[in-house]
């Protein structure tokens, strides 16, 4: 049984049919990537998994349990945490307070303190700025904070929405290194990216989504060599 299973999901924004019969499967310990153009429905898929948007049809199963009746904040307690697009850190809270909010579902103070130390080890820059208000961090630091904040809840599955967006190339590399580190540590990851090449290099499998429909699904290596993917998403002729 797959760890996370999206089954024939249809989702709407008002009258706009945003997801049409989307199905995905993610096995434990995998990195799966979802690639597609602007407005294809990548973020919408993640929003639906996280419960911010409820599917009108279809089901989302985590370890076989249907998530339909849970609200967004309850889905976090089930083990799915999302790093939203554009980072969305709490700009007026300090770095430590942001991390503390990431662990909101956790009541064990010792565990929270351990997690904070773990995150600071992973991102030493954040440690240097722990008392700083998060809105004053640079874009790269904010991305680290957003990922660190999500990891504070010890998620079984991490949903990453465009983690490389708006970052300098050297920082993009750092983000992908972090993703590989997390994978090595056993975290299951669903990665949404416009940077298809890098995403497929770290992922084991990939789904291609166009105008709300999954049009292609294969192992990452085949997608990297697929003509359509190369043309549409890697800028090759």
């Amino acid at each position, binding site marked *: 049984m797959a760890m996370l299973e999206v089954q024939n999901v249809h989702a709407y924004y008002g009258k706009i049919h945003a997801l049409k019969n989307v199905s995905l499967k993610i096995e434990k310990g995998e990195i799966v990537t979802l690639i597609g153009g602007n407005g294809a429905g990548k973020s919408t898929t993640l929003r639906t998994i996280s419960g*911010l948007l409820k599917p009108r049809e279809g089901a989302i199963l985590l370890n076989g349990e249907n998530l339909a009746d849970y609200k967004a*904040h309850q889905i976090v307690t089930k083990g799915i*945490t999302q790093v939203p697009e554009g980072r*969305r*850190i*709490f700009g*007026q809270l300090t770095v430590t307070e942001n991390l503390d*909010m990431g662990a*909101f579902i956790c009541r064990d103070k010792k565990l929270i303190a351990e997690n904070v130390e773990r995150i600071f080890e992973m991102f030493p820059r954040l440690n240097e700025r722990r008392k700083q208000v998060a809105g004053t961090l640079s874009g790269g630091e904010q991305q680290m904070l957003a990922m660190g904040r*999500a990891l504070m809840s010890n998620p079984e599955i991490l949903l990453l929405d465009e983690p490389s967006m708006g970052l300098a190339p050297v920082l993009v590399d750092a983000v992908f290194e972090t993703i590989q580190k997390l994978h090595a540590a056993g975290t299951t990851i669903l990665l949404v990216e416009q940077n298809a090449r890098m995403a497929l290099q770290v992922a084991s499998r990939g789904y291609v989504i166009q105008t709300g429909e999954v049009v292609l699904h294969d192992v990452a290596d085949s997608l990297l060599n697929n003509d359509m993917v190369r043309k549409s998403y890697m800028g090759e002729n």
Partner: protein
Amino acid sequence: MFQKWKDRIDVTDIVMWLIGLTLLSLVLWGSISTLRAGLYTGRHWVDFLIFGLAQGSIYALIATGYTMVYGVLKMINFAHGEVFMSGPFTAYFVAIALWQSDFLDNYPIIGLMIIFLSSMAVSTTIAYFLEKIAYRPLRGAPRLIPLITAIGASFFLQYLFLGLYGSGIQAYPDMEILTGFWMVAGVRILRIQVVVIIASVLLMVALYSFIMLTRVGKAIRAVSEDKEAAALMGISVDGMISTTFVIGGMAAGAAGVLYALMYKQVYFFMGFIPGLKAFTAAVLGGIGNIPGAMLGGLFLGLIESVGPSLFLDGLGIVAPYQLKDAIAFTMLVMVLIFRPTGIMGERLSAKKA
């Protein structure tokens, strides 16, 4: 260069600046002539100041309710004045019962505690259900709709309490420990005013510490900034909004008893004017900003108490104190025109950027 400058300024701006300047010069002229005429001595000014602080700290407590709700919902809860009224109006019956049984005279501190707690309990309950029944179903509706609902809820609560307790003005019982005055450095200070100021400051410190230091307080600030991101962190957005109303209700309930003890009277319409004033204070301080609301409240109280005699007496106005509400609301209009973000507004504009 000059052409560009001319293009950017239109007639409305000029009229607004003229109105502003006229008011400013009136205020200056009035103040100078009042001071030169020597109508009031130093002791009078100290009296005005202390009364202003007492009045202002009550405004400040109510204003925190407006500003916190604006923070999480981006909506003005116009029924907050009625949340403020419901507590002390209900606690009046508790106070009278305690007074008639001589409990209030024998154990004044415990008696006051009971009155405070019952008022806060009622205001909190009203605030909680107000959000749950009137505002929660409208989450996600265009912003005008909850605003209209708030005005409707305000009327509903006024007439609910009119129906429950009658239309008469009820007098809070006199308490010996709160009457009389203390002499401090040769200045006579009314006890009740000192009690009001100290109690309000303690409550504001408690409220601010709660928001800044506790996890729930941080979560409320997180929800104010970004509801979706907060939900993605496992924070119950609805839960935090309820908590915000509960805290605002507690502050309003406590402020209500202080108000009732100072003015000795409660009735179903008592929340209207203080509610508007506290809203003015919240805008003055920069809506959404908690320290701003507190400062705005104190500032408004001071201006209302010092302003009429300072600005208006010298202009030869016969009954300057009748114009204190006019001063308060003129200030609201001036702030909205010249500094829409309020006194502590920088942070708010930074948040939106």
